[in-house]
């Protein structure tokens, strides 16, 4: 089909997307679509991988075996999510090595939320409840993203995510029904994680640079502000149930809009953390690089094992 003009190819590409069909790896696609998808999917993959670090911090100190098993399983899931997404990114023509290099050199970003520290056990509850909760809202939308491998990875991920948020909420609920000190710990954790969780949905629509194109290409089917609002509408009653207070004096149910009204997000903080000045940016990146370097012997051993087996067979 090399006979088709670029304009005609572009037209067909868009028609396919508009007809709710999926673009597959070998299909013709607009360069910028490919480029934007590599950026988005790899950022997403890096977030899954770096996201293991704040939670990994508490695996050895989980309060009992039940919690420990659940946390281990969750963190293991996140590693799997990273792999599904790296695989999806690779179908667009970038290698795993390049992707990891972009992460380790700081060229690629990952979700800002993981640059905050997990200082108490309640933070593990808040992460599952709020951070995974926010991620799920975004990922449910992406299950119908126009790029086939990405959408399919999302379906798998969403299926696995559902326990992540529940185990987090359960941790919060246990603390809130515990001693006054435990409840205070849950409240403190909500105070620290609330605003960064809202920032996970990205800048306000009017300041979101890539959104229009990604919407046209059916990657982003709902806007940052719409998704954020859905999250708040779902989570606010859950906080009421827990009996802890969301740290926003403007938060209140709007009967006419049938949505929660909420206060202004501190975007200066957001951009400051994006720029690398968050509480844990350096620590996370160093831990990630260390894990990669210390895992080298495993990769080497596997390679040596295969070479040995091959030479025996020969």
């Amino acid at each position, binding site marked *: 089909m090399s006979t088709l003009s670029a304009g005609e190819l572009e037209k067909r590409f868009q028609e396919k997307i508009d007809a709710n069909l999926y673009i597959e790896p070998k299909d*013709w696609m607009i360069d910028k679509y490919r480029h934007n998808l590599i950026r988005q999917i790899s950022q997403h993959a890096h977030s899954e991988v770096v996201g293991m670090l704040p939670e990994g911090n508490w695996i050895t100190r989980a309060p009992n075996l039940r919690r420990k098993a659940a946390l281990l399983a969750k963190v293991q899931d996140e590693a799997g999510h990273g*792999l*599904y997404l790296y*695989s999806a990114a*690779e179908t667009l023509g970038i290698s795993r*090595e390049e992707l990891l290099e972009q992460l380790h050199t700081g060229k690629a970003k990952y979700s800002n939320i993981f640059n905050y520290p997990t200082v108490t056990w309640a933070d593990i509850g808040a992460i599952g409840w709020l951070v995974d909760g926010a991620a799920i809202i975004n990922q449910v939308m992406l299950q119908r993203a126009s790029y086939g491998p990405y959408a*399919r990875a999302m379906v*798998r991920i969403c299926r696995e995510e559902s326990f992540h948020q529940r185990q987090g909420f359960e941790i919060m609920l246990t603390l809130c029904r515990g001693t006054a000190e435990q409840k205070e710990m849950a409240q403190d954790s909500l105070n620290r994680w609330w605003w960064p969780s809202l920032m996970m949905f990205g800048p306000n629509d009017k300041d979101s640079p890539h959104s229009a194109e990604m919407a046209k290409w059916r990657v982003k089917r709902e806007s940052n502000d719409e998704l954020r609002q859905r999250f708040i509408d779902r989570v606010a009653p859950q906080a009421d149930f827990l009996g802890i207070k969301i740290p926003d004096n403007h938060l209140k149910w709007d009967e006419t809009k049938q949505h929660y009204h909420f206060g202004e997000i501190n975007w200066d903080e957001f951009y400051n953390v994006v720029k690398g000045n968050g509480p844990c940016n350096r620590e996370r990146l160093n831990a990630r690089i260390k894990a990669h370097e210390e895992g080298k012997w495993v990769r080497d051993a*596997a390679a040596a094992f*295969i070479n040995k087996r091959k030479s025996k067979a020969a």
Partner: protein
Amino acid sequence: MITKENDNQWPLWEVFIQSKSGQPFKHAGSLHAPDGEMALLNARDVYTRRNEGTSIWVVPAKCITASTPEEVGAFFDPAFDKVYRHPTFYDVPEGVKYL
């Protein structure tokens, strides 16, 4: 700093999972592994952590021959006009059973 230790990446494997005995194998995803056996172990850990499968196939991605998306129309064209391949094409008189 990161050094490029293995420039030649391990081969890519496509993973197919059979969810239940008797069911067809379905594509689940892909992964890199040095050989088939390790690909199987990794596939088990990555794609069947919740009893999603009773059996796994791993196939080197480079061994798959695929139809080309651009030629989808011409390629599947032979089946377009053959309505007589479907049972609904045929008249069954009223009262005749088991057809």
